[in-house]
């Protein structure tokens, strides 16, 4: 590899896209090494087999997997390879990463999320830390993401609204499902503020991308119209068009090589044919998903970093975050509606753009006063029919359901009701029981140790989740839903991961500095969700995009 690039970026998802496009636009030569293939709008269909039934956008677990450590009932940590359990921790291993398949619920963090420890104090057993930067430092980049990614929404004043430098979103909200009126009415009656959910989906054409076609299948699906603000559609295509950016897909980086001074000199990777290759650059940026970023840095031992890059104080891979909370459902039976209402409720396409932030912060005796809560989002049950039908696969005795009883149940599941779901997002507290290490017994198809992930949670997370789920249920009750139920657990949602390389001012307690540069490596940045010391109580993607725009400015200034 003769060419020496200004910047080599490992990964191409939400954490990578802003750095790639900003630096390419600024005239830097940028090389992107992405493990997955390059798919585009022409490859994305509303095909449940492709999106959700088979591993189309993620590796075969025999080839690449994780080892997951869970706590058994007797308190021991028990590990199991995912090729054995079938518990798939991959999200989207393609150009643009998992942002291709997100639902695009976009929330900013709030100022207090940047100083959770100062605001709410320590919680025993949790490693809560303030961020080394403030909301004010991040705000311009949240705003930038709104226009660059294309975020649709409507600002509504409420008691926990975060400050904004612009008055409103650059794109009006996406179309709304008729059930939204019922949600609003119920919230009014309960004196709650029903908030329009900002969404990274274009409500009108922008920058060569079409607006949403409202097929009703968004989350888990690649976007055919280009409306979804994936890193690929919103950023990479433009970066490549500058002529300064080269994307090598099917290129799996397995080690960053450092010299005697501890500087990264080469990225070592396997190409599509499994042949080892090298890439050289002045600066290196890693953004290949929180778990895989920690894995790559742990694997990248060198003369100055015998335990991996950024791991001279045993901080690397620690304080991994998922998203705490849970979900619930209420049913609205068509038999109880007049025909017109039923037909409106059956509408497929527009979004249920509603959420509640009334309890983002709250005061409650059971929590010892002032406490951190989270967000409640409403959504329709996913329309995926095979997944929906699979819920009828078992009868009440847990035997397989077949024949006439199955057909009866299928008819009920599909034609009996519209089901409104809610999801609760609250902080997954960082603890010593949630971290990434290397499993030297299990290798991927290239022979590298896979990531071992311990997925312990803090009991406090369940308490907050249950508090919020109860509140969400009151809305469904007010709406007159039947069969309302919810569940909150410590099971980690595999599509909401952050942390592992927390940023901070002290090398002894963090991996990255405030600029997201590895403390003791002069030319290595991490720009995916790994940097977050605490996750806030919203999906991470907007913050990941914003932070990557922020770091892009920092790298630009280095010249």
């Amino acid at each position: 590899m003769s060419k020496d690039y200004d910047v080599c970026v490992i990964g191409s998802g939400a954490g990578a896209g802003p750095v790639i496009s900003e630096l390419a636009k600024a005239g830097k030569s940028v090389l992107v090494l992405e493990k997955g293939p390059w798919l585009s709008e022409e490859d994305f269909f509303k095909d449940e087999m492709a999106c959700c039934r088979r591993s189309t956008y993620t590796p075969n677990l025999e080839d690449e997997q994780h080892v997951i450590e869970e706590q058994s009932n007797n308190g021991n940590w028990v590990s199991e390879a995912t090729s054995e359990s079938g518990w798939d921790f991959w999200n989207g291993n393609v150009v643009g990463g998992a942002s291709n398949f997100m639902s695009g619920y976009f929330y900013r963090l709030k100022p207090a999320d940047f100083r959770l420890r100062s605001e709410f104090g320590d919680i025993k057993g949790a490693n809560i830390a303030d961020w080394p930067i403030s909301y004010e430092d991040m705000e311009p980049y949240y705003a930038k993401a709104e226009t660059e990614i294309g975020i649709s929404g409507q600002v509504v004043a409420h008691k926990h609204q975060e400050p904004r430098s612009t008055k409103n979103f650059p794109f009006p909200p996406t179309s709304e499902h008729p059930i939204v009126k019922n949600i609003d009415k119920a919230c009014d009656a309960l004196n709650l503020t029903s908030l329009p959910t900002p969404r990274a989906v274009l409500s009108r054409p922008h920058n060569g991308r079409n607006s949403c076609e409202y097929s009703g299948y968004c989350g888990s699906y690649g976007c055919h119209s280009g409306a979804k603000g994936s890193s690929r559609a919103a950023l990479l295509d433009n970066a490549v068009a500058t002529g300064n950016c080269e994307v090598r897909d099917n290129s799996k980086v397995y080690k960053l090589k450092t010299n005697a001074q501890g500087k990264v000199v080469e990225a070592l990777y396997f190409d599509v044919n499994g042949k080892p290759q090298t890439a050289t650059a002045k600066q290196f940026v890693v953004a290949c998903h929180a778990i895989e970023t920690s894995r790559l840095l742990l694997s990248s031992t060198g003369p100055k970093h015998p335990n991996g890059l950024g791991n001279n104080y045993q901080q690397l891979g620690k304080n991994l975050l998922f998203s705490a909370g849970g979900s619930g459902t209420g049913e609205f039976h068509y038999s109880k509606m007049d025909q017109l209402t039923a037909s409106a409720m059956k509408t497929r396409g527009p979004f249920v753009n509603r959420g509640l932030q009334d309890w983002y912060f709250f005061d409650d005796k059971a929590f010892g006063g002032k406490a951190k809560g989270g967000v409640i989002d409403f959504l329709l049950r996913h329309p995926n029919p095979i997944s929906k039908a699979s819920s009828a696969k078992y009868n009440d005795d847990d035997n397989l359901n077949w024949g006439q009883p199955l057909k009866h149940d299928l008819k009920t599941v599909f034609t009996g009701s519209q089901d409104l779901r809610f999801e609760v997002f609250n902080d997954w507290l960082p603890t010593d029981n949630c971290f990434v290490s290397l499993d030297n017994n299990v290798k991927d198809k290239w022979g590298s140790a896979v990531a071992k992930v311990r997925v312990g949670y803090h009991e406090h997370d369940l308490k907050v989740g249950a508090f919020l789920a109860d509140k969400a249920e009151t809305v469904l009750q007010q709406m007159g839903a039947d069969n309302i139920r919810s569940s909150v657990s410590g099971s980690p949602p595999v599509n909401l991961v952050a942390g592992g390389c927390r940023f901070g001012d002290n090398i002894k307690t963090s991996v990255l500095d405030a600029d997201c540069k590895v403390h003791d490596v002069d030319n290595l940045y991490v720009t995916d969700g790994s940097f977050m010391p605490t996750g806030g109580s919203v999906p991470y993607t907007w913050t990941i995009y914003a932070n990557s725009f922020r770091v892009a400015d920092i790298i630009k200034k280095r010249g």
Partner: protein
Amino acid sequence: MNKQYSKLPGINRRQFIQAIAAFSASWPIAGIANIESLGISHTETYKNLSDPWLTIASVQEHLFPAGDSTDAASPGAEDIAALRFLQNMLEAPDTESEEKTFILNGVNWLNDLSLKNHQKKFIQLNTANKENILRQIETSNAGYRWLSLMMGYLIEALLSDPVYGGNKDQQGWKWLEHIPGFPTPTIDKVYFKLGAHASPRRRIKA
């Protein structure tokens, strides 16, 4: 935003391997079944079928029969082309050969048990005896896995895009009043021709 806690619930590879191991004992191969005795209509779909497919078709018809109490016209396994779908999927490049072998070996097991209990092959049994024998194999780990796989493929045949060979004339979608999303997949962009399964395209800009 659809928090994903797991994918493909129900398919646990370790249980699957255990189930296969349970089949490692060789079961006597039952004689070739006769189409005339298939307890279902003698239609084009099943003409010229021989085992293992004949028995599999009969199992599918039993698990997913046409008609129901409220709708005599509701589709059954034949209407949704469940057999063709299963055959297509077993030939798909990502389907593990172990799974195919497991499904086909299950036919021998089923017929062996049927001969032992009733001195008849599965397809020759009346509906009540078919039900009994399937509920009997459901109680074993391997039998449960086999039936669970058959059910999984049936549900996929009912509701996947017709491009995969099932859901003939969208009968599954129509019956359940399901509104599909658009665009629907084309034959050259089915899942096993995309992503991890496809030969990579090079779109490098130097």
